[in-house]
């Protein structure tokens, strides 16, 4: 379980001024929950994720994971970034096996598990390719497999499908849901697409900017497993989307 209490983040700007990027964030995530964050650019979505990941320190408040405060990065929280962030000098298989090697697994053992994951993301034929030889969608599959490999309880995904074309995006969304149904990790998923958020999530967090804060939390009560093709004709699905889009527009109008 993730508990976030009165969390805020201040940045020093180059001019020496304080910039309040996030203000008084309070949030609880249950284990195995899929939660999306949506909100205008610059409202602090990435910053929030980076703080939970332990990459960036908080200015105030605290983040507890199963009761323990976050003090730095750790293999219990696996990040997936929009820009993939693969190790370019390692092959696909080595990228995925890396985390396992660090956990002290032997090379054959790590590679065997890496191959299982590679099959799960449908790239077994590309084990010995270097990242530069893959398409964007393939790179993101490798990045997801690399993170899943060391078996974090929490996935922190920052617009993971943002850089991909619509077709690849739909595919990866479906794959992610399938993997999530199977392993039930806690997922915190940042996106700019309302549709994507509603399709994937148990709850959607709508953030507002200036300063960055949580504006609304909407539970998505659609049955699982979800089929995109069926949802398309589901009134409730469409209503969630319309409702959330309306909210975002209203917050933006209020901010302007």
């Amino acid at each position, binding site marked *: 379980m993730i508990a976030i209490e009165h969390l805020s983040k201040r940045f020093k700007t180059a001019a020496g001024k304080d910039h309040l990027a996030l203000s008084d964030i309070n949030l609880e995530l249950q284990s195995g929950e899929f939660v999306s964050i949506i909100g205008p650019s610059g409202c602090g979505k990435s910053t929030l994720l*980076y703080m939970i*990941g*332990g*990459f960036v320190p908080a200015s105030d408040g605290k983040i507890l994971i199963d009761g323990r405060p976050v003090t*730095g*990065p*750790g*293999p219990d*929280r*696996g*990040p997936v*970034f929009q*820009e993939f*962030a*693969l*190790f*370019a*000098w*390692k092959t696909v298989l080595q990228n995925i096996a*890396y*985390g396992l090697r*660090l*956990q002290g697994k032997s090379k054959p053992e790590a590679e065997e598990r890496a191959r299982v994951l590679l099959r799960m993301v449908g790239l077994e034929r590309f084990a010995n390719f*270097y*990242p*530069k030889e893959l398409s964007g969608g393939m790179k993101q599959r490798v990045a997801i497999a*690399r*993170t899943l490999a*060391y078996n*974090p309880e929490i996935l922190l995904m920052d617009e993971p499908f943002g850089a991909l074309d619509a077709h690849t995006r739909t595919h990866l969304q479906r794959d992610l849901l399938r993997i999530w149904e199977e392993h039930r990790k806690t997922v915190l998923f940042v996106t700019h697409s309302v549709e994507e958020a509603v399709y994937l999530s148990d709850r959607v967090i709508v953030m507002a900017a200036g300063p960055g804060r949580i504006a609304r939390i909407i539970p998505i009560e659609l049955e699982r497993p979800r089929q995109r093709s069926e949802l398309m004709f589901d009134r409730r699905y469409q209503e969630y989307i319309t409702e959330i889009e309306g909210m975002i527009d209203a917050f933006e109008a209020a901010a302007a």
Partner: protein
Amino acid sequence: MSRHLPSICAGLVLLLMWQLAHLSFGLSGLPGPMAAFAALPELISDADALYDIGQSLQRMAAGYLLAAAFGISFGLLMGTSPLAERLLNPLIMMIYPIPKAALMPILMIWLGIGDMSKILVIFLGSSLPIIYHSWQGGRSVSQIVVWSAAAMGMNRAQRLFRIVLPAALPEIFIGLRTGLILALITMVVSEIVARSNGIGNLLFNSMDMALYDRMFAAIIIIAAMGYALDLIFEAIRRRFLRWSDQQDQIQVAVG
């Protein structure tokens, strides 16, 4: 074959210009390419000359390898620690414009004209581009790549050697290549200034004795050494950077 055609043409043009200069000036100090090449076999079968070349290469290797080890560590330190960057950047900028060979007289006073002063000047002459490019390479390593490694459980030292170093390697190799040619240049100059042995000494001895064919043959050897070293270097670089986008891009970085 067609890949080598431009280089072959360039070589021929160079020889032609040399021949023309030889014919039109008619100086004894400017023998033609034929004479120079004719002096080559004698020079490279001469045990003393081979010893000189060996000494030169040894000192150059020592100075260059020191510069590589030191320059990469120093540069990556600057590239990953803002504090180190702030402290060391002014120092680098100050040392940058000094021609390192101009320090040779001082080094000779301190260390004599033996190997030490020469190795040190080669080290000084070749380390700056290595520091600079390692620094830039280290700085430009993507933060999220380093974070991805941190999340896997890598500590700071592991991230430096296993993430930052390989990620910066394409840029580091640019510095190493420039450094290699600078090491060659400083090596020859150091032997001209502090004459004890080496190919630079051989060159000037030939001049002193008015053996101009031999002098030009020595220059040909130096040029061939530079060319061969660069070829070997490129082969190594390509091997190390198979994974990189920059792999095929041959960059001629001067200075």
